[in-house]
């Protein structure tokens, strides 16, 4: 029984990861690629780890698995934020079919100060 559960979780996780991988290849601009990868990967890896937790069925392993997931959940969005911000700062273009860019012109050219757009009010 647990073998099937493990297989299922593994397969699911692997597919999520695969979708993320397809996403990073297919998505037309950087921001979309970033969007796709972070969460898919976290979810996918989380599933794989869950499989491992079930497989080993051991408290210390389970805590370890939880810890890894926790770290991923904590760090992945932050990583996405810093690289996304850096990308925007160095002028990485949005996809041509993008509908809106409210960040445009908000960064100070020299200090990278980011305004909230409420300074005028």
């Amino acid at each position, binding site marked *: 029984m647990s*073998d099937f559960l*493990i*297989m299922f979780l*593994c*397969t699911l*996780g*692997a*597919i999520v*990861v*695969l979708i*993320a*991988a*397809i996403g*990073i*290849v297919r998505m037309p601009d*950087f921001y979309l*690629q*970033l969007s796709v*990868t972070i969460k898919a*990967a*976290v979810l*996918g*890896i989380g599933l*794989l*780890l869950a*499989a*491992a937790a079930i*497989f*080993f069925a*051991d408290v210390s*392993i389970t805590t*370890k*698995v939880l*810890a*890894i997931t926790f*770290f*991923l959940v904590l*760090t*992945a969005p*932050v*990583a*996405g934020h*810093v*690289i996304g*911000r*850096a*990308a925007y*700062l*160095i002028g*990485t273009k949005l996809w041509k079919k993008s509908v809106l860019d409210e960040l445009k012109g908000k960064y100070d050219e*020299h200090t*990278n100060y980011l305004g909230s757009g409420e300074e005028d009010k």
Partner: protein
Amino acid sequence: MNLNNYLTYVVLPILSVAVLLVAYRFFKGPTIVNRVIALDLLITIGIGIITIYSIQTNQSTFLDDGMILALIAFLGTVAFSYYLEKKKNNE
């Protein structure tokens, strides 16, 4: 099909394909930021591979490596972002 074979012939190949796709993005770029996220994703998938591998070999020890990867892969991305911002400020 037992678990071991399933992992070997189904799950790991899927992950391998994923890795290859991400690697394709890494090498294609086109810009450094694309590469950085591809790198980040590579490492993340690496954690997945290690996880499966630890199940396959029944060695929970390898999960420790996964833990380290999860913890500090982040630093690489931060460092690259730091570089990009600094470089932009310097130009």
